[in-house]
């Protein structure tokens, strides 16, 4: 087994390696292959970084707009997902009705629906929140349900033997038990919600990081474009780590349990 410290060193070496390779490739593209579009196709990483620091305020503001909408949608979708999972675990009929559609709903290219939903609601923020919620709800519902369904019978028997009522069973056993499954779903959903929010930006919003990406691309301000792309990439990664951080905070007993495989589709 590799120690935590060693892991960290390895990861740092990797990041440095990627930066070096990137710089090398941009150099090759520009000075060896003499690609006239070199600065657009693969600019030097340090120029992108500098652009980011020069424009960090506008970039972060735009990012914050996108991120906050994603967060609202995420919260909404997660709540709907949790409620649906609980309903499905409470009633067999409910599960029979909803589960097949849960799977089918994933085959509908939701992000592809973005323009159509925008056309229906005619409000950028509503459609952004709606799509982010739609995307979030599925992984949350499926993982939460699989958590609720995998509670061991012994644990339920124990509560039954002291005649705990349904509410108590959910409060004391089912919810705490399913928490780690729920977080697996949230971890999958968080970057997807950010993606959805950015996409809606790009489809004709007034503000947000997606707008920055498109405008800078069309107006040939390459460095801003690349800086925006990096910002949006970091937003996705950060959303993932926020969930991980929340999990560490909420589930201190999780340290011993090996990671569970999530259900995405």
């Amino acid at each position, binding site marked *: 087994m*590799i120690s935590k410290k*060693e*892991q960290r060193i*390895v*990861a740092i*070496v*990797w*990041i440095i390696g*990627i930066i070096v390779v990137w710089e090398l490739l941009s150099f090759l593209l520009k000075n060896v292959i003499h690609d006239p*579009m070199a600065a*657009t*196709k693969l600019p030097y990483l340090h120029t992108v970084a500098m652009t980011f620091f020069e424009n960090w305020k506008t970039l972060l503001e735009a990012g914050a707009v996108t991120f906050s909408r994603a967060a609202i949608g995420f919260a909404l979708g997660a709540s709907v997902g949790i409620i649906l999972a609980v309903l499905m675990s409470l009633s067999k*009929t409910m599960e*029979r*009705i*909803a*589960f*097949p*559609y849960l799977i*089918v709903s*994933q*085959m*509908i*290219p*939701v*992000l*592809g*629906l973005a*323009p*159509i939903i925008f*056309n*229906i609601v005619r409000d950028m923020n509503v459609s952004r929140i709606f799509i982010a919620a739609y995307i979030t709800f599925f992984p949350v519902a499926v993982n939460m349900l699989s958590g609720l369904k995998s509670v061991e019978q012994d644990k339920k028997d124990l509560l039954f033997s002291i005649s705990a009522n349904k509410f108590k069973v959910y409060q004391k056993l089912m919810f705490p038990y399913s928490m780690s499954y729920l977080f697996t779903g949230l971890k999958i959903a*968080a*970057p997807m919600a*950010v*993606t959805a929010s*950015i*996409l809606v930006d*790009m*489809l004709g919003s007034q503000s947000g990081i*997606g707008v920055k*990406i*498109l405008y800078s*691309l069309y107006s040939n301000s390459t460095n801003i*474009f690349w800086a925006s*792309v990096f910002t*949006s*990439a970091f*937003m*996705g*990664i950060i*959303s*993932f780590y926020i969930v991980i951080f929340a999990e560490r905070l909420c589930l201190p007993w999780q340290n011993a349990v090996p990671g569970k*495989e999530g259900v*995405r*589709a």
Partner: protein
Amino acid sequence: MKSKVANLLWPLAFGIALILAWQFGLLHKMLALKPFQLPVPSEIASTLAANLPKALKDCGVTISGALIGLIIGSSMGFMIAAIATFFPKWGYGGLIVVTALNAVPIVALSPIMNLWFSTGMEQKIGVVTVVCMAAMAINAYSGLNNLKPHSIDLMYSVAANKWTIFRKLRLPNSLPYIFTATKINIASAIIAAIISEYFASSTSGLGFGIKDNLRKAEMAMGWSYIVVASLAGVILYCIILLVERDALKWHASQK
């Protein structure tokens, strides 16, 4: 037997009720929508029937791009996982980088691919490849490494070398995980392909069709593209399920 019928009947009844509600305007009333905003099912169906050849052609463009990207990306992802398995220390770090890549919003990639590739098809394949690579790498890595306790000890006891362990133990062990990744990737490949078409210079494909028809305010046509895309996704998913059932007869999930 009884429960099987119930498993089929309940969702079917719900689906029919939903379509009826949609057809007869109940859904519009509930959501306060005008018919031109959300066309009714019969209108979508007739539009689709009238434009079937064009819709299928566009579908073919998108799906073929998605499938090629899926195959390239999955192979690359598996290679990464295999390399990470053979060189645990450095490979694991690489995998962390790939995991981070998985959290990168794909839409941000499609304009980049626009810069690198000249045709819409290449660009589409590029986006799908990146999207599929991460999910496959992560899943395949767990499959190659989440071995049953003692199974690797058994291999050591007969002095098997690394390559034999890979072929006889890790590879079969990873199969269920690979199928899981493929099932995830089918949905995301189609979505990625459609999204990349929104931003590409292409003049065909489902994504282009949806965007173009919406601009022309042909909602029914846009919806029929969505229907085609969903059907294509479901069919591909079912094909994978069938292959999986055949390939994984030994696995507990199949019982």
